[in-house]
C-alpha cells in the first residue's frame, strides 16, 4: 500500500515528493507507487546491463586474436549469457518497465497504473527470474546461445540450461504483467479530455508494445517449458531421434522472439518522438501516421517470424511469404524515420544531450533497419545468415536504436525523475563517445559478415583479425561511453542543480507537475483540453 504523506518537520523545508516521502526499506520494497517501482526496475536492469556488458567486453577481448584467450567453453558461455541477459533482462524491460512505468500514468493524467500491486509483483517476478539467470551463471553458465535451439539445448548441452530457461520463463511473466497493466491503464485511466488522438506518441508506442508482450510472451513461456520437459524426461517433443521436429521449436521460439524485437524498439521510437518534438519546439509531423504505424508494427510483427528460418529447411513457399511480409513490416518504420526528419523542418532546434541521442538513434536505426532488409531479402540472407552481418544488424537496431533511445530518454526525463540536472558537458562528451565507439565496434562487423566470418566463433581464420581488432577497440570506447553516465548520474543525485518543473520548456502533462512528482502525481485530476505537442497554433498546412 502506498504510504500516506506525513508532514514531518524536516520535510517542511523541501516539498514532499515521491522520493523523500519516506526513506525506509519497507517503503521501497512494498511500494505500489509506479514511480518507485520504476526506480527499482531502473536499478535492477542497470545491474543486469553491466553484467551483460562485462561479458561482451570479455569476449571482445578474446576476439582480439585469431586463437583467442579463452577456451571454447568459456567463450560460448559468455556470449550466451550476454545474449540472454541483454535481451530478456535488460532490453525487453528497459524502457517499458522504467521510463514508461514512470511516465504513462502521468502523461495520461492518472494517479497510478490500473493495477499498482500487479506492477510491484511484476518487479518481484523479474527479480526471481534474474536470480535464476544469475544462478545459472554462477553455477557455470549456459552455452546454448540466447536462442536455445533444440536438440542441442534439450539433449546435447551439458551446461545449466534448465536454470537459464527457467529464468527466461519467469521473466516472461513479469513482461506480460507490465504489458497488461499498460493496456488496461491506457484504456481505462485517461483523464477527462485525454482522447486517443491526444495521447503522447510515447504512450501509443508503449501501448503497442503492451499488445505484443501480452500476445507473444505466453508462447515463449510454453516453449521454454516444453524444452525443459524434453531436457528432464527426454520425451521427444523436439528431438528428431524420437520423431520430434527441431524446426517446430524454432517456429514457437520465433513466434515470440521476432515480435520481441519490436518490444525492443517500439518504446524507443516513442521516446524519440517526444525528444525530437521537444527540442524542435514543434508538434510531431503527421501525428496520426506515427501513432498508427506503431500499431501496424505491433500487428504485422506477428506474421514475419519465419525470416529467421530461411535456410533451416522451412518450406520454400513459407520463406517467400515471410520475406514479403518482412518488407511490409519495414514500411511503418520508414514512415517514422521520415516523419521525425520532417518534424525538424522549420523547427527551432537546440542541441541538448537528449537531442544528440535522438540524432544518434535516427542515424543508427536507419542503418540497422536497412541492413534488416538485406536479411529479409531471401538470396542475401542465404549469404549472410549466421555471420557477423546479422550480429551487426541487430546491434545497430538494439544498441544503436533502443539503447540510444533509452539513454536519450533517461537524459530527457532525469530532471523529472530526480529533480536534478546532470553535467551538460560530460553528458555531451559521453554521447559522442557512445556514437563513435558504437560505429567503430559494429560497422566493421558488416564487412566481416559478408566476408563470411560466422558468429559464435571463439577463434577464427587469421584474415579476419584486423576488422576484429577495430571492433574490440570500438567496444572499449563504447564501454567508457556507458560508464560515464553511471558516474555523472550518481553525482547529480547529490550535487546536481535543481531542475525545476520544466527545464526543457517541453509540452506534455508530465512537465506541468512538480519535479520529482508527488506520490499521486496530481492534486486533482487534470482536464485535458489540447492536443499533444502543443507548441503553438498550426501555422502552415503542407500539401
Amino acid at each position, binding site marked *: 500500500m502506498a504510504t500516506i504523506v506525513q508532514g514531518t518537520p524536516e520535510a517542511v523545508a523541501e516539498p514532499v515528493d515521491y522520493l523523500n516521502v519516506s526513506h525506509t526499506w519497507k517503503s521501497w520494497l512494498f511500494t505500489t507507487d509506479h514511480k518507485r517501482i520504476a526506480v527499482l526496475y531502473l536499478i535492477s536492469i542497470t545491474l543486469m546491463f553491466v553484467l551483460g556488458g562485462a561479458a561482451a567486453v570479455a569476449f571482445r577481448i578474446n576476439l582480439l586474436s585469431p586463437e583467442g584467450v579463452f577456451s571454447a567453453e568459456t567463450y560460448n558461455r559468455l556470449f550466451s549469457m550476454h545474449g540472454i541477459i541483454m535481451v530478456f533482462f535488460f532490453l525487453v524491460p528497459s524502457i517499458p518497465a522504467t521510463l514508461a512505468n514512470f511516465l504513462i500514468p502521468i502523461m495520461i493524467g492518472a494517479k497510478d497504473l490500473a493495477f499498482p500491486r500487479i506492477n510491484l509483483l511484476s518487479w518481484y517476478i523479474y527479480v526471481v527470474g534474474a536470480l535464476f539467470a544469475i544462478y545459472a551463471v554462477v553455477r557455470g553458465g549456459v552455452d546454448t546461445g540466447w536462442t536455445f535451439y533444440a536438440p542441442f539445448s534439450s539433449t546435447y548441452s551439458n551446461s545449466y540450461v534448465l536454470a537459464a530457461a527457467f529464468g527466461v520463463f519467469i521473466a516472461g511473466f513479469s513482461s506480460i504483467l507490465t504489458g497488461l497493466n499498460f493496456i488496461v491503464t491506457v*484504456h481505462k485511466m485517461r483523464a477527462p479530455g485525454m482522447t486517443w488522438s491526444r495521447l503522447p506518441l510515447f504512450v501509443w508506442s508503449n501501448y503497442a508494445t503492451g499488445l505484443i508482450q501480452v*500476445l507473444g510472451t505466453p*508462447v515463449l513461456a510454453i516453449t521454454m517449458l516444453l524444452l525443459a520437459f524434453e531436457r528432464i524426461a527426454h520425451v521427444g517433443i523436439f528431438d528428431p531421434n524420437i520423431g520430434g521436429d527441431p*524446426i*517446430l521449436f524454432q*517456429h*514457437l521460439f520465433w*513466434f515470440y522472439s521476432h515480435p520481441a524485437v519490436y518490444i525492443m524498439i517500439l518504446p524507443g521510437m516513442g521516446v524519440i518522438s517526444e525528444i525530437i518534438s521537444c527540442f524542435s519546439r514543434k508538434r510531431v509531423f503527421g501525428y496520426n501516421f506515427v501513432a498508427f504505424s506503431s500499431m501496424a508494427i505491433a500487428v504485422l510483427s*506477428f*506474421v514475419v*517470424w*519465419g525470416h529467421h528460418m530461411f535456410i533451416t*529447411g*522451412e*518450406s*520454400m*513457399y*513459407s520463406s517467400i*511469404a515471410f520475406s514479403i511480409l518482412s518488407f511490409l513490416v519495414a514500411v511503418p518504420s520508414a514512415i517514422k524515420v521520415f516523419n521525425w526528419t520532417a518534424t525538424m523542418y522549420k523547427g527551432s532546434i537546440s542541441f541538448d544531450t537528449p537531442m544528440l541521442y535522438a540524432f544518434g538513434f535516427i542515424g543508427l536505426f536507419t542503418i540497422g533497419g536497412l541492413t534488416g532488409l538485406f536479411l529479409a531479402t531471401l538470396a542475401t540472407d542465404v549469404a549472410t545468415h549466421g555471420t557477423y552481418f546479422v550480429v551487426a544488424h541487430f546491434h545497430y537496431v538494439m544498441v544503436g536504436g533502443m539503447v540510444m533511445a533509452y539513454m536519450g530518454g533517461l537524459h530527457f526525463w532525469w530532471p523529472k525523475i530526480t529533480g536534478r540536472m546532470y553535467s551538460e558537458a560530460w553528458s555531451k562528451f559521453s554521447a559522442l563517445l557512445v556514437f563513435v565507439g558504437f560505429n567503430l565496434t559494429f560497422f566493421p562487423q558488416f564487412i566481416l559478415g559478408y566476408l563470411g566470418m560466422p558468429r559464435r566463433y571463439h577463434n577464427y581464420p587469421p584474415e579476419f583479425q584486423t576488422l576484429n581488432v577495430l571492433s574490440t577497440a570500438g567496444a572499449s570506447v563504447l564501454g567508457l561511453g556507458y560508464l560515464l553516465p553511471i558516474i555523472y548520474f550518481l553525482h547529480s543525485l547529490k550535487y546536481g542543480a535543481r531542475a525545476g518543473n520544466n527545464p526543457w520548456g517541453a509540452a506534455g502533462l508530465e512537465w506541468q507537475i512538480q519535479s520529482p512528482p508527488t506520490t499521486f502525481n496530481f492534486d486533482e485530476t487534470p482536464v485535458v483540453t489540447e492536443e499533444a505537442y502543443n507548441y503553438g497554433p498550426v501555422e502552415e498546412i503542407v500539401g
Partner: protein
Amino acid sequence: MTQHIDSVKAYVGVFIALIILTFTTVYVSQLELGEFHIIVALLIAFIKASLVAWIFMGVRHSSKMTRLFVVAGLLWLGIMMLITFGDYTTRIWDYTPQPWSQKPTVGGVH
C-alpha cells in the same frame, strides 16, 4: 458498467445444450467420417466454447472493446497455428505425409 443479470433459465438452457453437445460429439466420433471426423469434432467444440463465452462469461453483455479483445485472442492463436502449418504442408523437398489426399506426393526435388 450497468449490470446485466441473466435469468436462471438462460443458464440452465446453456447447461443442457452443453451436455447434449457432449453426447453428440462422442456419438459422432464413432461414425465413419474419415477426414471430416476432426472437423466435426472441432466444430462442436467451438460451438460449446462459444456458448460458454457468450452466456456464462457474459460476452453478450460486454462492451465492444471486450469483444474485440476476445476476437483478437482467437485471431492470434489462428495466426500461430495457420502459419506454422503453412510451413509443414508446403515442404516439398522434405518427405511429409499427406493424409488429406490420396494422390501421390511429389517426391524429392533434391
